[in-house]
């Protein structure tokens, strides 16, 4: 979780940012799916987050500057340890991550030279904002 946030914040190029954004959306998909319906309770917000994260991930994939995945690199998919065992802890962590994601993608959209990169970043930022709002985060 911290690694992903750091990767987003420290990405020095559009390619690095898109790679980190893809990882972040995949992570959100995985976590929201795992924690939406647990013994602890049912979290409606995470159910909606799941759909929004998948749409955001699809947006990032359409960016021409997204690099091919490095061989052997594991995605933060299923099995990735959550930030905290509780649903509320996960929701808070995902809210923070989506806030950073939305801000970085919105910023990248303003500076990307390729039209399709810009569109991908804008759409990705829009879905990241939606996730952030669903999880009760303040305006990123």
């Amino acid at each position, binding site marked *: 979780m911290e690694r992903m946030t750091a990767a987003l914040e420290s990405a020095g190029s559009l390619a690095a940012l898109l790679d980190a954004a893809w990882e972040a959306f995949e992570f959100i998909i995985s976590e929201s*799916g795992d924690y939406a*319906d647990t013994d602890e309770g049912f*979290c*409606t917000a995470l*159910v909606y987050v799941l*759909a929004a994260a*998948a749409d955001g991930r699809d947006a990032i*994939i359409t960016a021409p500057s*997204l690099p091919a995945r490095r061989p052997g690199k594991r995605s933060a998919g299923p099995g990735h340890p959550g930030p905290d065992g509780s649903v509320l802890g996960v929701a808070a962590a995902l809210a923070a991550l989506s806030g950073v994601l939305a801000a970085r993608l919105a910023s990248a959209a303003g500076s990307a030279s390729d039209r399709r990169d810009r569109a991908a970043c804008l759409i990705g930022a829009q879905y990241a904002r939606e996730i952030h709002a669903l999880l009760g985060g303040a305006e990123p």
Partner: protein
Amino acid sequence: MTGRPVLGDFLAAANRHLERAATQSGTSASGRDAEEMTVSLRRLITALAGYASDLARSFGVLPDRDLGLLNSHARAAVQARDALSGAAACLGSPEVTGQPVSGLARRLDAAAVSLITGRDLLQTHFASDQGWRRARSGWALVITSQPVSRALLAEITSLSRQAAAVVAGAVPEDRPWPAAEQGRRLHLACQWLALAGASDQPACQQDPVSGTERDLLYAIPGSALPRRRVPDGSELVPELCAAVITTSERVSHLAWAAAGEPPGSPAISVTSWRRIASAGTATSHHCNLLLAALAARAGQHRRGDARAIGEALERAAADARRSRASWLRAGLALSQVTTDVRWRASPAAAEATDLALWTGRLAYASPGWVPSRGPDHPARLPENLAPARADVPGLVAALHYTAEALERLAVSNQQQVRAAARAGRVFVPARSLPDGSATLGQFVPAPADHTVSLLAVCRRATKASTRTVSAVAGIAADVRAPSRVLATAKVAACAGPPPVFSRPAAAVPAAAGPAAEQDQAAPDPAGAPAGPVEARARALGVTSPRLLWRATGVDRLAQQVIADAAGSRRSPARSAASTARRSPGATPARRVSAPGRGRASMTQGRAHPAQQEPEAEP
């Protein structure tokens, strides 16, 4: 129950107008009255004939020689249509002379307008497509179903009998009329009307129309959707229930339309599927909470059947919980694939999200609940949800409509996923594949195992939703919730249109000879002996069923005239009221529940002929 106009409103109004017309008959003495009555009766007959034509539409184009193959129901529809045509022909094409003055003519006009409006309401569920009727809503299948067709024919024949009795009673037979020719034509038209009214008697004697079938007919709404509603946080439970029902109806219709999208339609997108899956998961969760709360409430009641209903509610709550899990699994599977069209949510998806919001407002204590609230948000207390036992049917109805809408959404998603997969429109991100780094392109066609498992989870969501609907429908029947007509509609739609032939058409000899035609042409299903006109027609070698029916009709009309004449001799001062009393169509009003309106009952002034005092054989 949602404030939408339903067919029953117009059928009941037509019946009411004819009942009131009966009280005004016997007063017609002037030539103007006769003219007005002729014009108004023709309008009414034309309105009735419109329904009969719709009922006979699917088999009315058969050649005459095949009409004998029709079963009793189809034959009755064709006979009613033909008799009504005959009645209209008797009256010619009278000139319209403005608004009628006589009370009787005004009532006949009002009945005609009600019937025309009711038929227009039915027609809103169909579109004309190069001469074919195309369904525009899920109700179209219900309207053309066997139970509704039978019930509608019974209504039309009953109204025909009623109109015949009213007009015949108003036209004096035993004294000169200012317009003798018009009087003769009116009487003849009434005879044809009476014949139309009797056309379904053999079919109804074999298989009477049930009250449930009639309730369903009366509950058919127009296809115009109720207005979309947005919560403002001030709604109380009854308003929330009404909004849930309204939104469910919108969702059901939009999901029905979405399920029929062609495989290449740009309206099919993974974004819609995902949004629907999310809303389906959330709404199922809310149903689970509400059913559990109602079960707890039932446990607090001490009435005899409360325990059984409480147990049924608990089982339904468990079904809703399983449905929630199935929807969530579908959402997870849908997050792993994509389509060529993305980021475009369909109207059905948007409305599904609305439904989740409305049901959430009903399920949770907070009046401003939104999905972003966390898992620890308190649910509404059972005693606040249904303070009185009388509140339970309304809540069950809201849940019933919701469950139906969820099932429609599940079917829609399943059908769209299947269609898109067949059209090669389902993809996966290349990066998600094990060898994604080596794959050129952003998305690759979904591997077969992906599509198979995706379809499997969608199918499971449909099954789970269907199970929940069944459970809630059972409770709706138990507590007599106004939504129980939904279950009847579903059964009717599944049953399909009425069978047309009394035996398989394939069994008909390809080159049926005259003997076979003669055998097929038997026009009187009741097996009554042929009258003189029919016998003469047969002796002349007539085999056309349509001609033989007309001959039978003439025989029956003649018998009716003789019976009436004999009756007149016994009681010369026969009044219109007594005529109406003898008519099955003018029996005292009976209360029939009309669940679709949320009212306790709806006046319906007709009963099945088989349930009436036997009418003198004409």
